[in-house]
Structures are given as C-alpha cells and as structure tokens.
C-alpha cells in the first residue's frame, strides 16, 4: 500500500496542535530528540518499510526544493 497522501485525519487541527504542544517548553535539542523518538515509534507502527521510505523521500524532496540553488545567495533564505 502506498503512502496515504489524501487527508486521513478526523481532526487535523487538533492533532497539529497536539504535536506542537508536545514540543512545548523544550529546547531545540530536546525537540530534535522528541521528533527522533516520534519517527521511530511511528515507523514501527506503520511497519511497511516502503511506506516509510516513500514518506522519507517526500519529506526530503520538500526540503531540497526549498533550499537555494547551488551558487545562489544563501543570505535570502
């Protein structure tokens, strides 16, 4: 089964808030630690390696797309 890309949450705003709330009062390093643990727990729950890899690719692409082109002026980013 491929990665679900259509909306799949009953209360998206509520869950979004819950994610932010989990990071409340954390330092940047602690937030990184929390995100890492979240990824590990969810990846195991999903269980389907292809789905997790598809999500990884998608996430990475969205970062690469936002990054300035090579030789570009980084000061604008």
């Amino acid at each position, binding site marked *: 089964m491929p990665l679900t890309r259509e909306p799949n949450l009953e209360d998206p705003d509520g869950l979004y808030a819950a994610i932010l709330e989990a990071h409340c009062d954390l330092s940047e*390093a602690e937030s*990184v*630690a929390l*995100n*890492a*643990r979240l*990824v*590990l*727990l969810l990846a*195991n729950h999903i269980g389907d390696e292809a789905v997790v890899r598809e999500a990884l690719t998608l996430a990475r692409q969205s970062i690469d797309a936002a990054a300035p082109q090579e030789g570009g002026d980084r000061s604008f980013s």
Partner: protein
Amino acid sequence: MRDVRQIHFPHRRSADQDRPQPRHHPLVIVGAGPVGLVAALDLARKGHASVVIDKKSSLSDGSRSICWAKRSLEIMDRLGVGQALTEKGITWKTGKVFFDRGRVFEFDLLPDAQHRRPAFVNLQQYYLEHFCIEAAKRTGLIDLRWQEEVTSLTPTGDGLLLNIATPAGGYRLVSDWVIAADGARSALRRSLGLAFEGRVFDDQFLICDVRLKLGRPAERWFWFDPPFNRGRSALLHRQADDVWRLDFQVGASADRDQETRPDNVARRVRAMLGEDVAFAFEWISLYRFQSRRLERFRHGRVLFAGDAAHQMSPFGARGGNSGIQDADNLVWKLDLVLRQLAPATLIDSYDQERIAAADENLINTTRSTDFIAPKSAISRAFRDGVLALARTEPSARRLVNSGRLSVATHYQTSPLNGPDALGPGVAPAVRPGAAALDAPVAAGWLHDHIGDGFVGVWFARDPGLTQPFARDAGLLSERALPIKTVVVSDAIACERYGAEPAPAYYLFRPDQHVAARWRHPQRAAVEEAVARATGSRC
C-alpha cells in the same frame, strides 16, 4: 596448558634454498594466522600439500580475534579442531546492553537448543592458532616456514614466481596458486599495488586484556554512555584463563601514548570494574576502525582471504569469522580445480560469493559503528532516542545496535545455486546458498555427515519413502566426483529442513552450504546441480 605465547618458532633453512632452480610447490599460503592455517588444514584434509610462509617467530602477540561464531566452530569441527577450541574457550550466547546506569536490552543468540555448537566461543586468537598448528603437524602435509617473508610475487606463464627473504638469505619458489592471508597490512596486496578502498573512522578504541577473577557470567556486556566512560561506549567479554577483554571508546582526539600508558589504562579498568579490583595486564592496543575491501579477491593465481581482502570494525565479530569462511569457501574449489574435476573458472565464484559476504559484513559493521559512535548531532539524537525508548519499548530494542554478531553468509545470489524445488516459503533458513543448519541425528550431528565432498541428504521421517531413489544413489556414488547419499529420519532435523511430513532431498556442497533441494530428486537433476555448483554450467 603451558603459556603458548612463549613458544618460539625458529627459522629452519629449507632444502629449497639450496636448489639451483626454484622448486615448484602447487600451493603456497602466505600468513600463518587463523585464515592461512585453516586453508592449509582444509587443503591437507583433501590430500594437498602446502607451504605456509610467515614472517613471525611466535603466535599472535595479543588476543586479537576472540569471538568464534558457531559457523567457524562448525568449520573447525570439520577440520578436527572444533572440540579443542570449545573445551578451552568460554561458551556464551547471551548479550546484555546497558545505557547510562540501567540495562535496556538482553539477547539470546541461539534460542533453539539442539545444536552441537553454541552461538559463540570466546578464545584468544593465539590459542586457535596453536591448535591449528598442532593439527597441521599431524597432517604431515603442511610445511610451515617461520621468519620468512615474500618480498615479490611475479606472474609467469602458468604460475607465480616468489622471492622469499629469510634470516639465512633469500630464495625463490614457483607456485600454481598463492593464498594471500597475510593480514590487514598485507604485504602481498601492496606488492601487487592493489587499491584497498573504503572508510577509516575517526573514533579511537582502546582494547585491553586483563587477567582477574571476576564473578560475572560469561556474557557479552555492552555499555552506551556509562558513568565510567561518559558519552562513549564500552564492552566486556570473557576469554579463557580468567582473561577479560575490555574495550573503551576513547574519542577521535585521544593521544595514543597517553591512552595506552598502563597507569592510565589501569584507571579506566578500576572505574569500570571497581576501585579495589586486582588485575594484571595481558595486552593493550589502540585502534581505529577501517571499513574497506579489495575490489576483487582473485587476482589471477593470487587469492586474497581474510583481513588481507577486507577489513571491518570489530563490533559483530565478523573479521576473524569471515576470514575462516573465506578459507572454507575457497579450498574445496581449489581442490576440485587441482584434481581437474572442475574448470579453473570455479575459482571466480570465490570472488562472487565472498565479496557478497564481505559486503554484508561491511554494511553490518558500518551500521553498528554509526550507532555506537554517532557522527552528527542528529545521528546521536536518533541513537539516544532508541536507547531511551528501549527501556520500555520492545520495538526500539530491536534497533539497538551494539554489533550484529557474525552468522554464516547465505549466498542468495550465487551462480552456483541450483533449483529450490521446495519453494522459498519452506524452511527459508536453508534455501540454496545457505550454510547447513545443524541438528542432532542418530549418531551425532548432521554436520558429521556432510562436507568435504558433495553429499545428498534425504530428510525423511519414513526412510522407506526414499527407497525408489536407491538405484540413483548408487550411481551417484560411482561418479568421478562422487555424491554420497545419507538418509536422516530424526524429527528435529526433518523439521528444520522442511521435510515434515513429505521427505526432502538436499544437495550439500563440500563447504556444507546447500546447493539445491527437491521433493522428488532425479539423478539427472542432481548431476546438473553438481555441474552448476562446480562451475561447469552457468
């Protein structure tokens, strides 16, 4: 047993040195470490004489490789030294992993009983070498030449010319095949100018072996970020003679001379084991991991094996064990080629199978190293996340990587593999390419009945069902390259080989790996599979 490390091997001037023309030896092995000695023993077992050349005058100077995996022990059993290793060594199968002050994880490497050998036996490398040398002497076929060094290696038309330096001057030999088992700093590799590509890790590790009485079970204990080595890792292993292996991660910038000074090491030992512990040092060594291999292990008639061919981080005990498997894979092929029962191209399958094995070992040891010594902040965040979650989450325990311990390589994609008529779902651990899985049989163990030659094993709860094959079995045993047939009806063996209730026939190679398997073997199909497994058909 006397202290084998005191044994001195004098140089004995060979009669070859007095010949006007270089003497011809079909097989020369360079390096009398575990890999070279195993190759020599296996060749002798098949009737081939060899000359083994080593520049040392004693056994391995430190414990070095200490963890011998089940598969290595099975190979050693075939060569007649497995029992001595197991009796002298320390048997273990349990590993414990600690994070900070708490235990996060425990594993059992051999949860199934009913195997002759345990998952691991810990034994100092010098003992393994000693037992092999004693066995080598008994064969009468192994010419061990200590304190000699191959200084050059030149291909001639159909062989190799070796220049050898000795304390009594130089001499030359010609050889058909050279096995280069001369270790991580292989002089042969350098003399042939071969690239040894890969990664060298920055982090340094301090190994020390100490002799002490320690009331702890024989288990592998691994610490991440313990109070006695903050931010780093440590490892504890028991060896024979009340010697314990301690391994401390000491960081990239540690100073070699400072770190290896006995008073500094002693401080580490006491911090780990207790301030009042009494101990004596056996060996101290500082190292950086390397992860690299030769692009090819076969270079014409020079065959690289063990650390000379591939070097990897020690977490997982894959160095010494994979070297022994290299020799196990190579020797039966050389034997068949030398006896003209297989084309010389069979040797190319050594390259294919053992490079696949080296890559598997390299990827496993590299992943372990990345987990043990994270290279970036995010890599550390994931690592620490795994360890923290592992306290309560079974899913995270599976990710804790303190070394994925050596198991036999399954040659899944080998061109030597024949048909899998049982299908991939049946007993997948013993599909073609896999090493045999041990099991108790009426008179001992399955491994006693396979190896050295090709053997067809019927696993059948009712041996009567194999009767229709009896005539074919007779004909198979009369070939130039005979195929022996064995019938096994023991319940555990039949279950492990997917022969319950219907019988199954497995063709085993001389290295005890599965070549092919059927429910209803035909003589022609078995012969075809042997032809494929000996490189006669591809």
